[in-house]
């Protein structure tokens, strides 16, 4: 069904543990972790007090005081990541037809940090139900409806085609890129700046995950707190960040001699229609999404060189996902390397899907598979090859990355190296 073939030609990243793509890849390929005690606010009253934070200096990245004022932290991260992606692509954006250039930004919780800050002001720290609007900043509406995130990116890159924010919880970063891919494939645009961002490390988000005990209480060992697939795991570590991409049509990318990181060869999303936060242990819907994405990419499970797992480090997720891999990949599930970079950079909600796509593209670029950090003693029910502790060199042409989110969303994307195999 998909028409034109779509490739990644530029990557930009703002992630915990480093500034930009290069430092992101160093962290991942060296198996280092960026989780630490929360410093963005006083987290002492909360159950889970660890997070993976970005040491982010918007001013140093050239954002003006005015831009910084009107943008939420998540928007700033996205804008800086988008600039890096644009520069990396080598594409002359000034020479593009703005009408054929679009933007798709994924985000699970939008401008939640800016909203909470403003809420505290207008409500006098929660004292007033009838908040005093006269204290509100003039740009409050931009936080209220976070389509502003895509608007800011569009202004940066000069896009005047389709511009959207996609918000499907923790699959937002896969779904926004999947959406962007469809826009190019169907011919609605030629170039998309797409990806995702979230900056959820604020009291309300920490409190709401505390309430359902989804985040880890391993506060005394923050550097090793994110432990996907490990038997001692007890919840995920909240993260933040953004990854943005330049996507274009394969032939035009080739014509201009662009560096092609990967082709977005297959994408599918499904819903579990089961529970807003719960997962069925059999992994059925994720398996269905994986199967559909593989079919669209015309890739057999046996062709996969690497699987980037959702691997959040909650007991329920890691078992659900392991079951989904076995169900969809059959015997190959036991052979293919599977890893979770959330062990190193935490779980940045809607952003993580795009950060994981970036990790996959870089794994293909370097023929190195990033490890699952902190995995010393696997849960007996998680019995696949999770690439524990150290990265692995391996020819990596064909990759699957998956995500799972509140709301029941399950998404899967297949990336291939164009030219690595006979064109389908």
């Amino acid at each position, binding site marked *: 069904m998909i028409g034109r073939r779509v490739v990644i030609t530029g990557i930009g990243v703002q992630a915990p543990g480093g500034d930009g793509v290069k430092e992101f890849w160093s962290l991942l390929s060296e198996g280092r972790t960026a989780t630490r005690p929360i410093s963005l606010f006083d987290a002492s009253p909360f159950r889970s007090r660890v997070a993976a934070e970005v040491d982010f200096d918007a001013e140093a990245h050239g954002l003006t005081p005015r831009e910084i004022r009107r943008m939420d932290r998540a928007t700033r991260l996205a804008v800086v990541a988008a600039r890096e992606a644009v520069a990396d692509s080598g594409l002359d954006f000034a020479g593009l037809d703005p009408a054929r250039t679009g933007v798709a930004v994924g985000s699970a919780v939008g401008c939640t940090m800016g909203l909470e800050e403003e809420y505290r002001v207008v409500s006098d720290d929660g004292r007033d139900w009838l908040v005093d609007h006269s204290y*509100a900043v003039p740009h409050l509406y931009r936080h209220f409806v976070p389509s502003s995130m895509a608007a800011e990116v569009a202004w940066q890159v000069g896009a005047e085609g389709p511009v959207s924010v996609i918000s499907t919880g923790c699959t937002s970063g896969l779904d926004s890129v999947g959406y962007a891919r469809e826009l190019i494939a169907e011919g609605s645009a030629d170039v998309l700046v797409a990806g995702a961002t979230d900056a959820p490390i604020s009291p309300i988000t920490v409190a*709401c995950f505390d309430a359902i005990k989804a985040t880890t209480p391993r506060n005394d060992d923050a550097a090793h707190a994110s432990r996907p697939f490990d038997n001692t795991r007890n919840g995920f570590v909240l993260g933040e960040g953004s990854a943005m991409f330049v996507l274009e049509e394969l032939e035009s990318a080739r014509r201009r001699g662009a560096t092609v990181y990967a082709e977005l060869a297959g994408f599918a999303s499904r*819903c579990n229609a089961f529970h807003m936060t719960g997962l069925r242990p059999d992994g059925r819907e994720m398996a269905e999404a994986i199967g559909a994405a593989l079919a669209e990419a015309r890739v057999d499970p046996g062709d996969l060189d690497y699987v980037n797992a959702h691997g959040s480090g909650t007991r329920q997720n890691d078992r659900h996902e392991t079951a989904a891999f076995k169900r969809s990949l059959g015997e190959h599930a036991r052979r293919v390397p599977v890893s979770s970079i959330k062990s190193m950079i935490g779980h940045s909600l809607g952003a993580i899907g795009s950060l994981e796509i970036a990790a996959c593209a870089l794994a293909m670029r370097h023929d190195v598979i990033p490890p699952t950090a902190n995995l010393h003693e696997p849960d007996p029910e998680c019995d696949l090859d999770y690439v524990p502790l150290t990265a692995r060199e391996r020819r990596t042409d064909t990759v699957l990355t998956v995500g799972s*989110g509140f709301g029941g969303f399950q998404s899967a994307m297949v990336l291939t190296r164009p030219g690595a195999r006979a064109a389908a």
Partner: protein
Amino acid sequence: MTRIWVTGLGVTAPNGLGTDDYWAATLAGRSGLGRITRFDPARYPAQLAGEVPGFDARRHLPGRLIPQTDHMTRLALVAADWALAEAGLAGGGPYGEYEMGVVTAASSGGFEFGQRELQNLWSKGGRHVSAYQSFAWFYAVNTGQISIRNGMRGPSGVVVADQAGGLDALAQARRQIRRGARVIVSGGVDGSLCPWGWAAQLSTGALSTGDDPATAYLPFDRRAAGYVPGEGGAVLVLEDAESAARRDAPVRYGEVAGYGATFDPPPGSGREPGLRRAIEIALADAGTAAAGIDVVFADAAGLAGPDRAEAAALAAVFGPGGVPVTVPKTMTGRLYSGGAPLDVAAALLALRDGLIPPTVNVVPDPALGLDLVTGVPRPAPLKTALVLARGHGGFNSALVVRAAG
């Protein structure tokens, strides 16, 4: 190319709960705007809104859903129930679970729920935050809850924007059907009528501060001075036309025939906004010339500048007064992500009945050169309608619906 029909509608609007009530009120020119009752608006400069009347969630939804949902999600769940019932798909019909999905639009999520939990957090502490906060307020909540309630496991999604997002969601639903799904429940139901949401909406300065519901929201009128927000919207069942015909779907409102979306040039560029281009893309996508459009449901910002820009775009495409234009949202207010889906519902009902619903209270500014349908419904042979929506910051979307023939 796969054709897509609308085979069911569910409406929760300020001037009518349910499609029939809404449509009867709209044809009769009955407005649902009034002084806010959900909270005391006395301290705020704007005090009018369109609230959905007579909605008792407990009559429609299981008790277990009430503590975990915001008001707008309850409205959305009920609208989805009605749309699927009308489509004859309440139990799923002949389709497999992976052939049915949900794509909704959202603007600000369950904001009232969120305000309550922010208040709990900051006035009492983190341990007072609800276990449901993690999803009750977030943008994906309506899609998730509708998919769970109806066992729909196919491709799903959520588009975030204010007014334009409602059309973007319908376009994404169409895309998913073209990619292989059979049914996508789509549209948008929205509302943030709580003090915190009100403060956010006031921050743009675009809300009407009038206190008379009959004169507060007057798009395309010389007296235009802002808009009145509302809550509600519409859920539409989009279905692969061939499959719908095969199962002999009981209702065929029309076809989603064309769509276009653009983004304005950066503020201050002095260049033409993107609305005209969105219209042209949608018409081309629908394979129709401007002359093929029988009626336009306008975005109608209710502010002089944006109203002029919209009128100019319409004049550029259709010629001055070249097409009947109407704004039934003068009776509901602007419903954010619910507004455009409700306009699409109105457009489909107009096609069905051969009646253009009126714009109320407005005395059209002659300088705008619009053929605005005011006062009473205008009978007309209608085959094709264009719905326009714009979102804060420069978003433009256009959707063409055509009678199922």
